[in-house]
């Protein structure tokens, strides 16, 4: 090594500064509120092979520090100075993972030699396709999700390919926004290139190149250090998305985490087959795909907040995702709503690491953030108004040292809300409530973070409400080490009235004037036995309205009389409750427990083996039929075996291929 650790740290700072600068430039000059408000964009510097070496820490989304542009970059054979390449096709190099995400990259040359790339992505409000904003769970093929571009040069030697741009703008619903954001994006890439050039002048091209390599090594070293601190072993965990399609069956994600020394294998075998809905996560089977590892970045950063965020973090991890499954779908499976599945993917990883390092990991975060939008008419002006009301985000899981953060936190902490007063001034709706939902955090020694609730009344006919990413209204955020699961989310029309309608995971509903809509997120899971929570802390929760007196008694065994803890009564109640406690790592709540009485781990494992043996186009169909024939709830006296049910399916549909049991 010719550069020392000090220079390495300084080069690291300069690279991060370049990435931050790109992010600020993009944020400052972008047109769409999507970039401005939800900050759904990223910027990176990658090495010449496309591995990310630096990301910003202040702005943008948290998903892509480990991104590898390599496969997509390699689909363009010849780079020249001032080229800018782009793609938004989820299946070309598995870089863009749904169609609205436009990734762009620009090579930086020095004396004719490629040094590195400056890169990034923005989520475009709309890329065309079947529905506005291009995203819907109901879509079944990627072709319905908008206009796609494989890796192509948008600029060749600094010259814009106008024809390409015209094709794009013709196909999208808000061409001005796409054009404006694209311009801002190009500005950001040019800023990044300028900063890299300054670094070449300062450090020399060889040192910069070597520094990039060492920064990847450094992050890898830090990740390996974290793994060394976790006991070797094989840890299995599974988690479910409530529905695999609109009104569908549960979708299981399974993970066998094998930690060996300073490396780990994440084997996702046993996850559901690819879905005939837009919930698939396109990874192309890349063993280091960044979407598979987002949960891992969170774990690493949580266990070592000094960690450097770059693609070196992905090196100690090898992911296995069998082809034709929800985590490695074959084209043309739809992928638009992969963010919902990614939420489960993260909780899956948190759960497996929680088994491996129980003393240092939190319980499940709420894990579902519904973005609530309203389309209504102003009764005064008769104008149609489309507005984002708020993301409805739940709390963090109980931590080893404190309660879960209320109303946001963990893997949802990057989301922002909109002030009630701004919404009421712009949109003809009245917000009745926006706040924390009492009793929604999983009970525990450290309570799960509370859910957020939003209620509002509309005043115009045909008011459309959408709430993207609805999940966890059935399967709860789990508690650990004796802590209880958090309360599930819900979506209810006219709650507490004769016209009440429980909408669950429904993500779109049409309202009449005067209708009130209620939505709440899930709450975070609890950590540790609630019977070990100090009575004074429980009493404070009651005083603060986080926990009701009834739940204080029922879940925590704390009896409060006239505002004070009755210690004697509490002691004896807790003693009687302790005898009923069971010692499992996870507490999933009644819904998953009931589901798993029928769909036991063994049965579900057998299901995924069976489905994996079928040709891809049969898998989702057969799964759906098997679920139809299996009992739905309760404990049947003689549950049929999977084999028997499969036989019934084949009887009804003789075309289904036979399976060798």
């Amino acid at each position, binding site marked *: 090594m010719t550069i*020392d*650790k*000090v220079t390495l*740290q*300084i080069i690291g*700072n*300069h690279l991060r*500064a370049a990435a*931050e*600068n790109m*992010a*600020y*430039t993009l944020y*400052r*000059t972008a*047109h769409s*509120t999507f970039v*401005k*408000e939800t900050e759904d964009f990223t910027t990176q510097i990658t090495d010449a092979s496309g591995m990310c070496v630096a990301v910003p*820490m*202040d702005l943008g989304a*948290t998903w892509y520090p480990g991104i590898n542009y390599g496969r997509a970059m390699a689909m363009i054979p010849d780079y020249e100075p001032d080229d800018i390449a782009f793609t938004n096709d989820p299946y070309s190099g598995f870089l863009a993972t749904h169609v609205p995400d436009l990734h762009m990259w620009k090579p930086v040359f020095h004396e004719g030699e490629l040094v590195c790339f400056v890169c990034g992505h923005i989520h475009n409000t709309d890329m065309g396709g079947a529905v506005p904003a291009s995203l819907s769970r109901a879509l079944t093929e990627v072709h319905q999700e908008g206009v796609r571009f494989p890796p192509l040069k948008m600029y060749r030697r600094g010259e814009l390919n106008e024809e390409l741009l015209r094709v794009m703008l013709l196909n999208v619903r808000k061409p001005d926004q796409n054009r404006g954001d694209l*311009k*801002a994006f190009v500005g950001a890439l040019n*800023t990044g290139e300028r900063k890299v050039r300054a670094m070449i002048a300062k450090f020399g091209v060889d040192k910069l190149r070597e520094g990039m390599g060492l920064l990847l090594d*450094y992050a890898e*070293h830090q990740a390996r*250090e974290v793994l060394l601190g976790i006991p070797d072993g094989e840890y299995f965990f599974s988690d479910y998305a409530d529905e695999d399609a609109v009104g569908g069956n549960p979708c299981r994600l399974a993970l066998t985490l094998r930690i060996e020394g300073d490396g780990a294998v994440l084997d996702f075998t046993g996850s559901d087959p690819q879905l005939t809905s837009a919930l698939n996560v396109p990874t192309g089977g890349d063993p280091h795909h960044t979407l598979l590892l987002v949960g891992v970045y*969170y774990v690493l950063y949580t266990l070592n907040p*000094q960690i450097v965020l770059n693609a070196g973090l992905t090196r100690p991890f090898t992911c296995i995702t069998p082809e034709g499954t929800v985590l490695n779908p074959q084209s043309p499976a739809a992928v638009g709503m992969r963010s919902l599945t990614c939420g489960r993917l993260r909780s899956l990883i*948190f759960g497996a690491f929680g088994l491996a390092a129980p003393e240092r990991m*939190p319980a499940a*975060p709420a894990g579902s953030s519904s973005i609530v939008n309203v389309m209504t008419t102003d009764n005064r002006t008769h104008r149609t108004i489309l507005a984002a009301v708020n993301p409805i*985000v739940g709390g*963090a899981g109980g*931590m080893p040292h*404190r309660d879960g*953060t*209320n*109303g*946001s*936190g963990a893997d949802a*902490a*990057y*989301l922002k809300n909109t*002030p*009630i*007063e*701004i919404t*009421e*001034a712009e949109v003809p709706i009245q917000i009745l*409530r*926006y*706040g*924390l939902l009492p009793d929604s955090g999983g009970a525990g020694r450290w309570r799960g973070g509370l859910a957020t609730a939003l*209620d509002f009344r509309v005043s115009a006919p045909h008011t459309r409400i959408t709430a993207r990413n609805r999940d966890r209204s059935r399967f709860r955020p789990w508690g650990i080490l004796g802590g209880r699961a958090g309360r599930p989310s819900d979506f209810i029309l006219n709650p507490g009235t004769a016209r009440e309608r429980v909408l669950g995971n429904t993500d779109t509903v049409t309202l009449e004037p005067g209708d009130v809509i209620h939505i709440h997120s899930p709450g975070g899971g609890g950590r540790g036995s609630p019977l070990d929570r100090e009575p004074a802390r429980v009493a*404070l929760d009651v*005083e*603060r*309205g986080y926990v009701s007196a009834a739940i204080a008694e029922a879940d925590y065994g704390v009896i409060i009389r006239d505002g004070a803890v009755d210690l004697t009564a509490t002691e004896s109640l807790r003693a009687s409750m302790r005898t009923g406690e069971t010692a499992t790592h996870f507490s999933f709540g009644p819904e998953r427990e009931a589901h798993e009485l029928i769909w036991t781990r063994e049965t579900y494992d057998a299901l995924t083996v069976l489905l994996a043996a079928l040709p891809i186009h049969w898998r989702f169909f057969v799964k759906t039929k098997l679920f139809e024939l299996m009992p739905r709830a309760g404990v049947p006296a003689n549950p049929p075996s999977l084999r028997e049910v499969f036989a019934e399916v084949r009887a009804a549909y003789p075309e289904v291929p036979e399976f060798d049991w």
Partner: protein
Amino acid sequence: MTWRIGVDIGGTFIDFFALDEATQRFHTLKVLTTPADPGQEVMDGIGLLQSRHGMDPATVTDFVHGTTVGINTVIQRKGAELALLATAGFEDVIELARLRMPEMHSLFCARPDPLIPRDRIFGIGGRILADGSEQTKLAAEDVRRAIATARARGAVGIVISFINAYRNPAHEDAAAAIIRAEAPDLFVFTSSETWPVIREYERTTTVILNGYVHPRVAGYLTSLEAALQRRGVMARPMVTKSNGGIMHTGLGKTACVNMLLSGTASGVMGAAFLARQAGLANVLTLDIGGTSADVALVIDGQPQFGMGEVVGEFPLFIPSVSVTSIGDGGGSIATVDGFGVLKVGPESAGSTPGPACYGRGGTRATITDAMAVCGFLGHTPLAYSSVTMDRARAEAAVGALAGAMGLGLRETAEAIIKVSISNMFVEVNKLIGRYGVDPGDFCLMPFGGAGPMLGCLLARELGMERVTIPRRPGVVSALGGLIAEVKNDFVRTVFLELAPDAAPALGRIGAALRTDAEAWLREEQRFDGPATTRFLADMRYAGQSFEIEVPIDAEWIAAGDIAAIAGAFHRQHVAIYDFADETAEVQIVNLRLVIAGVTTPPVFPVLPLADAPALPIKQVDVWYDGASRPMPIYLREALLRGHCLAGPAIIVQEDTTICIPEGFAGEVDSFGNLHLAWQEQLA
């Protein structure tokens, strides 16, 4: 025979900048703070001005004071136990805040604990709608119940913030009236009187900060007023404000929120004044103290203003001088991790125990220790002789890291400096990125105790070719108070589409703002000098989620010239964001008025012209850029107009040490500022 005195209280020292108008000489002082008896140090300083410089307290015409008592109350969380009355259904407004939180890559990320716990937040029935109409009456019984419970839970004051109160404060006023009538022992503030602007979280957190610091700030200012009177200072004391202006201490006791950032703001005001005096238009100010560095942009001689500046852990939404605080100061601690990588900060030795070389119990290596080991520091006493430098302790502290890094002592020290400089580089770069400016167009003005020590090194890293070091870097904030205007901001949220039919409303609101502003300046502040007023509008395109500030000509408002207002907005949008859409709907969210009573700036004496080259007092060996090299040491007080210096060199003065690396050379101007420039041919 009059004196004007500017005073700024920092964490370790209190700085005095006193101008004797008869002789046009100014005197500076640093006195150690007396945390146990705040205000005492002010008296100590006045005593010193009397004894050393023959000042007669009765001749003081201006006494302007910047204080950290407010911000320290927030940082140390020693403020009042408050209750909050919120609209029923929105009791969690401060806990939810704007959702997004820092450290968003960590599963353990959390917001700071709110200043008011949830058990002292009370939902109150009654609803004002977005158009200002009353939908449901205020539930007076809810207010009464809240008063009783708040008192039982230890509240000494109540803040009120209801939804849509920016549009109609009637419910806030009515609730306040009930509290004043039925619980006169509890103090009350409402969000609409503090800063009546749209966005409930921002307005609520601002009024909470006001109430939280109120008892301490009021108590402090009252005892200060009394002590000054006892001393015979008859001038009505003034305090510096977050907006860079000043106001009388009497108002400071209730409008506390306006003085939370008084020290940092007046530092930038002072630096901007010095920049204008020296003929510099664009300056990046760098104020480095023991625990942090404050960076700000001065563009065309003017500080930048914004909202959402951070006080402790909370954003403050009143117009304030924009300052970015970086967690790197002279006391930032260096550590080495398992991979052999050196980290500097964010942990700081602060003023207690301070850097190891101060010999006050610190043992861990700080930036100051690294500077001492390299040989930049320790040749003369520091900070007006209040600190003596123990180089052996610095060497021990830095030496403890040298082993882990596999480097020699001086190489390790240099590494600490370089890493901390590159940390500052990252943060300053973000500021530059946010404003979209080119650092090459700016001159760096370092000040504060540690600014001149690190300024040139940071400039070199940022590619800034010009550095100007003021004559008295340690007292720039104190000077800032002295030159500040008597200034206040007024706001109304209008939230109108910018169309011809908005003209009457804008005219009406403009006139109301002017009436309020004139009353504030002439009646409340009893200011009778010349004044300026300036209209600003917070505007955006419909659908945007943030506004930009647009200067508005008063004529446009009076004449209802909507087209001119729209034109100004589009131009400003281009200036900031590089694009405009003249066909899109424009909204005017807030109309603001800034009134400023102009104070006479002090006249500074001009230095005599040098008639011989500057002579160093001695030569020392300093390690930097990988080699030991001889460096001359100059005394700042011996430098005269026209003196030229070239790096490498060190300049020592009572309040700071200036390090000039090789490649920089410069000249002293008539006010004693040292203008350094990067000399390409020397590098």
